[in-house]
């Protein structure tokens, strides 16, 4: 009986599912751009470039994504006078800035890990710093970043559920709403939502694996087979 009611209401998840995916994709795009900008800046030799980026990264890593979400949604309009027409923008900004700050460490680390000889060779070839970054450093650093970025993309997907608490109508919000209606089982609805998130995480993971294989093939390196594991680099380092 309960199960029947749950199955009947499954089509209602369509639109909120698009919201969940939209929030995740939009904030992941923002995070990726920010990660590269901040990663290049924090890896810079110049103190004047490095310091502001470092402060930004430490600030956003240190202040809790949940608090940031509430701050951007309810405090920023008051303090800065910036009012979004849609609350969803505040959610995307909070998630994007937070995960951009975390992922910038991945970018910085991968760039720093490119062997010194490669840099010396680019100097010997008389490449400009920009050419060196674009033609030598990034093509080698990029495949190394993908597994860790994938781990962050999945964490970002999970964090996107938090936007439901500031009143954005995603699948977590819908499960709570339908679950309260008569004849519905809230537990089953939350269960459905968990499975949806798991499938989305699996999609991200599969896509990133394919991307990594392609990027490594470009360098003539075989991607190590990892099955359903947390990226070894993330497992070894943790995420503070």
């Amino acid at each position: 009986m309960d199960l029947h009611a749950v199955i009947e209401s499954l089509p209602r998840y369509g639109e909120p599912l698009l919201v969940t995916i939209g929030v995740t994709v939009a904030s992941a795009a923002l995070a990726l751009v920010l990660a590269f900008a901040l990663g290049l800046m924090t890896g810079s030799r110049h103190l004047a470039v490095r310091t502001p980026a470092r402060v930004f990264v430490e600030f956003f890593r240190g202040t809790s994504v949940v608090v940031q979400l509430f701050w951007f949604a309810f405090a920023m309009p008051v303090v800065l006078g910036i009012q979004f027409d849609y609350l969803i923008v505040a959610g995307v900004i909070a998630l994007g800035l937070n995960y951009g700050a975390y992922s910038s460490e991945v970018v910085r680390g991968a760039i720093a890990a490119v062997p010194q000889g490669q840099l010396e060779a680019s100097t010997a070839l008389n490449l400009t710093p920009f050419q060196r970054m674009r033609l030598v450093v990034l093509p080698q650093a990029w495949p190394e970043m993908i597994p860790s970025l994938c781990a962050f993309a999945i964490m970002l997907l999970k964090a996107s559920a938090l936007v439901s608490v500031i009143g954005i109508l995603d699948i977590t919000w819908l499960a709570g709403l339908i679950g309260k209606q008569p004849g519905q089982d809230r537990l089953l609805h939350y269960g459905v939502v968990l499975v949806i998130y798991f499938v989305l995480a699996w999609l991200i993971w599969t896509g990133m694996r394919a991307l990594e294989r392609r990027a490594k093939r470009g360098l003539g390196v075989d991607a190590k087979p990892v099955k359903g594991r947390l990226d070894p680099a993330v497992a070894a380092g943790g995420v503070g």
Partner: protein
Amino acid sequence: MQTGWSNETVREIFPAMWDGFLVVLQVTLVAGIIAVVLGLFVAIGERGGPVWLRRPLSLAFQFIRNTPLLVQVLIVWTATSLYINPDWSAFAVGSAVLGVHYASYTSESFRAGIDAIPQGQWEAATALNLPTRRVWGAVVLPQMFRRSAAAVGNWIIAMFKEVPTLFVIGVMEMVAQARAFQGQHYTGAVEGYTIAGLLFLAASYPVAVAMRRLEIRFAKSNY
């Protein structure tokens, strides 16, 4: 409707935010113990446990790791308050869910620590005919702890910053305190969330720096 920053409101809201901060610390302590102990057992189970247990254990924690904490908190809280025992406190249920969620991360770090131990160590333990208890207790775990300490410390910091998620089930941490204050005084959003963020920063940054030092020290000690 609030119009801007007010020092008056800061003075009024701060005691409540401090109470919330203490609750965050208490949750972190309880959930942290669960995350470390359970994570350790899961890692040992995946590497040294009975073969029939390894795959289901790994799959279960993979599911926990890849689904949102928020939904896990909601589903467990619904189950306990509606079906199991309505007397269980939000603090206890929330801490348990948070601890189990982060055990899914710490177990991966412990497991990575076990896997990084050179094969020769295992072979030497076999050659010495050490009993299983001694292999783990005297050879594997001491080396694993050195390798995993910084990573697990980082997960605990990450967990600390996710405690506010528990406001959805009514744990009176900082976000819940700020919301309660707003409900009574119709102001305090700016001050409350700013104080919450700054307290998180003040508490987590020094620990994060210490963990980075630890990481570098262990990396240098040639392990």
